[in-house]
């Protein structure tokens, strides 16, 4: 029986509408199912954006793989030194106290670290290795009750604006093989100072305090920009840098494995991002 609008009841109209929608859905599913084998043809997604073109690289700004490198006499910090045998030294180590190069060149300390001293001769006065005297005029009163743990040895944020340029750009003598080198520690800490400095009370800093100090030091250094605009405020408050992993859609935090001063032999911790990629040519 053919139903016409003037003879349909409300219930019949609803049933007819539902049947029509069902038929459309079945048709769409069928089209989608039939279309899948077609779409399985290998068409790289990358071809969907043929308009992408950045233009040819500018040779004056890049190092072409086949170019002849010239060894600079005084390379600026952060620029790799290319040796005649093709090996390269990257000198922009920010997190690791650099070991002296096998050559006679001295190692350069990164900003915020006190000069390296030889533990065997620590008691001997050596004015050339003394860190710059720290102005303690604005140090908190140590006789007062200790503040809550998280901020016990952290400086007042109103005072944290002025970093202390301890040993910035200082040059340490090349270490003697077989002798253990540790940085010198002070009591109290302000941004720019050694992360393993003892607390105001003379205690060992907790690992979370060392982490906070580490990120604050990065935040006031010239290297803070390397972490992007989004991380500047995080670093200034002692938080680890964060990034969005576009593959997973999740936010990742930079990991900082902190041990004690003795276990680390005085070396600042080295941070790392999540990931376990294999470098098949490592060591080659």
């Amino acid at each position, binding site marked *: 029986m053919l139903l016409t609008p003037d003879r349909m009841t409300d219930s019949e109209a609803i049933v007819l509408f539902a049947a029509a929608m069902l038929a459309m859905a079945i048709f769409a599913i069928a089209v989608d199912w039939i279309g899948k084998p077609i779409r*399985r043809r*290998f*068409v*790289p*997604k*990358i*071809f969907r*954006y*043929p*308009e*992408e*073109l*950045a233009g040819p*690289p*500018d040779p004056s*700004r*890049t*190092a*072409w*793989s086949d170019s002849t490198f010239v060894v600079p006499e005084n390379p600026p910090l*952060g*620029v*790799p030194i*290319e040796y005649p045998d093709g090996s*390269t030294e*990257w000198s*922009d*180590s*920010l*997190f*690791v106290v650099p070991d002296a190069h096998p050559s006679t060149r001295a190692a350069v300390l990164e900003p915020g670290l006190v000069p390296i001293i030889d533990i065997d001769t620590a008691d001997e006065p050596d004015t050339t290795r003394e860190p710059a005297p720290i102005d303690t005029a604005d140090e908190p009163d140590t006789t007062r009750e200790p503040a809550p743990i998280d901020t016990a040895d952290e400086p007042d944020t109103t005072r944290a604006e002025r970093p202390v340029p301890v040993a910035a750009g200082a040059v340490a003598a090349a270490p003697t093989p077989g002798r253990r080198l540790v940085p010198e520690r002070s009591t109290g800490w302000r941004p720019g100072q050694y992360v393993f400095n003892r607390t105001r009370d003379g205690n060992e800093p907790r690992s979370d305090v060392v982490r906070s100090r580490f990120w604050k030091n990065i935040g006031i250094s010239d*290297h803070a*920009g*390397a*972490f*992007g*605009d*989004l*991380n500047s405020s995080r670093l200034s408050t002692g938080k680890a*840098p964060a*990034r*969005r*992993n*576009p*593959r997973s859609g999740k936010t990742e935090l*930079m990991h900082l494995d902190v041990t004690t001063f003795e276990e680390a032999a005085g070396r600042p911790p*080295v*941070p*790392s*991002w999540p*990931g*376990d*990629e*294999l*470098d*098949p*040519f*490592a*060591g*080659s």
Partner: protein
Amino acid sequence: MTADRDLATIFGESGSEIITHENRTVRAFVRIEVPARATLEITRLTASRRRPQAMKISANVGELVVDGSRAPTIALWADTSPRKVLVTIDNDERTTVDLWNAWRYGGADHAWLGNAGIVVQAEADHYTLQCSDGVGAVDFTDLVVTVRISPDRARPAGHVPGS
């Protein structure tokens, strides 16, 4: 108004892995469909001397085989790897691989920070990936590689090793 914001900020605000920057499509990473047992020929055209650059490659299914090493994700660093590297995808079915650039700074490997991004140029038989690392201004010449995909004709699908 993108001059005041770095690419990571724009990526974050867009919630997408593809953005437009100065009339160019910039990606946070590149995903390529590849047939079973395909081989990627990665050729490094240029790499910045300011800091080590790397191309990271990850198979979403299966493993990658490079120079006898096998892993789901590999990193080809400009200061250690040859200019041309063959990467075989050990998977019996069609899959996808992701590629993104990384750099070493301050003793740590970084990616997806600051002004990092990739501009892709599709050629007739390969793709050119022009990568900017995250340090400093946008510079899509920090790392430039080509990716050429070829099926593994020596081992067609269904081939049983040793038969």
